[in-house]
């Protein structure tokens, strides 16, 4: 057993996971019967809250007609749920690999709930994309086999990065979910999907925050050098930025009949209003990473 996985055997984590597993069992629902799936959703209104659109707050937003904004909101919502489908598939693979691995005993029971729920999330997100967008936007990532964080094949580094990535991904998604669940101008199906996902995710995020913090403490107390820890910090910082940048998908601009999607993406990413929007989306993630010392606090 690695030094890392002993890290998860704390009375406090066990107590939290017992509580979350209990709650998962009590709140269990049949996702296949939970939602209304009308044949189509109205195209004369937004499918995503206006402040979540990638053009929001920029001069470019003002140049689009109402119809173009509606179209963009449709494709950017399909992009959002597509990112969920791909993100969930990857996290399911990683959590499934670890579920009964030595050292993950304290988390196994909760991981069963997690895996079950994520499979269901992937189902309703994929269903949304296919039913209302006719497609899932393809995943552009490829495993390059490069090592990260100076850890080589060190399982302690790999475990930490897996759970840190899952947590960051879930926190970003949750920002969008909470906003859309509360947005009364959106269609009931859209609000319901976002509300139900947010409810499950609040358990995943509570558990994930503790796991990531404990795994990071174990790395700090291990023989990792300051440079190796800094490499992990730099990686996570870039992971966070890249995750946000995935919301600027040139394919969405093309599908909304907006030309030169790649150039538009670059222009929007450089816009100060978007930097400010990113700070809002990431505020919970950044304060967690700073509080735990995973990112330097400035």
């Amino acid at each position, binding site marked *: 057993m690695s030094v890392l996985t002993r890290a998860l055997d704390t009375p406090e984590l066990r107590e939290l996971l017992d509580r979350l597993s209990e709650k998962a069992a009590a709140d269990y629902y049949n996702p296949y019967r939970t939602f209304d799936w009308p044949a189509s959703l109205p195209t004369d209104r937004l499918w995503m809250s206006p402040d979540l659109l990638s053009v929001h707050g920029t001069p470019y937003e003002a140049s689009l007609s109402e119809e173009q904004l509606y179209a963009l909101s449709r494709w950017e919502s399909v992009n959002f749920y597509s990112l969920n489908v791909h993100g969930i598939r990857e996290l399911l693979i990683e959590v499934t690999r670890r579920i009964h691995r030595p050292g993950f005993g304290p988390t196994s029971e909760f991981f069963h709930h997690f895996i079950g729920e994520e499979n269901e999330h992937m189902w309703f997100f994929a269903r949304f994309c296919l039913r209302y967008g006719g497609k899932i936007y*393809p*995943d*552009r*990532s*490829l*495993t*390059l*086999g*490069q090592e*990260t964080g100076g850890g080589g094949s060190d399982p302690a580094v790999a475990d930490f990065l897996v759970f840190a990535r899952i947590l960051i991904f879930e926190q970003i998604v949750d920002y969008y979910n909470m906003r859309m669940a509360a947005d009364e101008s959106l269609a009931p199906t859209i609000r319901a999907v976002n509300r139900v996902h947010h409810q499950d995710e609040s358990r995943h995020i509570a558990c994930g925050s503790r796991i990531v913090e404990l795994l990071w403490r174990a790395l700090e107390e291990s023989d990792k050098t300051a440079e190796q820890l800094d490499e992990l910090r730099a*990686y996570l910082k*870039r*992971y966070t930025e*890249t995750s946000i*940048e*995935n919301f600027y*998908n*040139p*394919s969405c601009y093309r599908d909304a009949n907006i030309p*030169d*999607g*790649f*150039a538009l*993406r670059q222009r929007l990413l450089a816009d100060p209003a978007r930097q400010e929007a990113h700070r809002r989306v990431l505020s919970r993630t950044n304060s967690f990473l700073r509080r735990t010392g995973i990112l330097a606090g400035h």
Partner: protein
Amino acid sequence: MAHPMDSIRAWLAEKNPGVGEIPPDADLIENRLIDSLGFMEFIMLLESVTGRDLAVETMELSQFRTLAAIEKNFLPGTPDGPDAS
């Protein structure tokens, strides 16, 4: 109009300041000129210069490994290429 490979070289230069001229057969992945986090934007760029979607999930890493491979696999016959139309 700039050759599509120029856009790719410009993107690589922007992501890797100070790297200088990249030889056509240099391994972009081994040399970390593209890493897993940068790869997605790289594909967006490649889709933009080729004007078509790439089904990355069905592709092999070797297709992207060098500038020469990228030109051969994705941009044959572009403006100053051999079979320009």
